[in-house]
């Protein structure tokens, strides 16, 4: 069973790696962020697979943190389209 899980993890790594092509091609930042998103989720899945295959359950925590912060980059991306934003205008005192 461990062998099977390792092979799956390797295949998953290849798939997320292929997804990186979207980061290189773009064209919009949203597309690139999707590739990052895929790496985040894929990475989490890989961590879970390796954790189960090797019996090192501590690695599940890595997947936990990856999953917890998976949406973080996407949130940060929406912090602002450079130049077009007008967020804080006159919100002073």
């Amino acid at each position: 069973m461990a062998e099977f899980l390792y092979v799956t993890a390797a295949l998953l790594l290849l798939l997320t790696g292929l997804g990186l092509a979207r980061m290189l091609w773009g064209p919009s930042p949203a597309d690139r962020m999707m590739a990052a998103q895929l790496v985040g989720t894929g990475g989490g899945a890989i961590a879970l697979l390796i954790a189960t295959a090797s019996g090192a359950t501590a690695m599940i925590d890595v997947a936990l943190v990856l999953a917890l912060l998976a949406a973080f980059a996407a949130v940060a991306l929406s912090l602002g389209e450079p130049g077009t934003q007008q967020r804080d205008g006159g919100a002073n005192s």
Partner: protein
Amino acid sequence: MSLMADTLTIAAVSAGLFFFLAGTVGLLRFPDTLTRLHALTKADNLGFGLIVLGLLPQSPDVASGLKLVVVWLLVQLAGASASQLIAQFASKGGPSA
């Protein structure tokens, strides 16, 4: 019993892998941002969910199993929110209502 568990694992994890494959292919091949986003969420939701489902019978203790489920729930939440946010960002001509 163990055989059944192993069969379930192999079936579910393979199915999960298939959805990741579909997600990646969609991400690479679909013509515009929003359709690609659609493909990505398939990998997030179904792919990850099926892999977690497949790993559950293999988890050595209850705590690890629970953590697996929590990870899955978090990925669901994060995936759904992130795809909404990315979609809003992509269609920045008309910001969210």
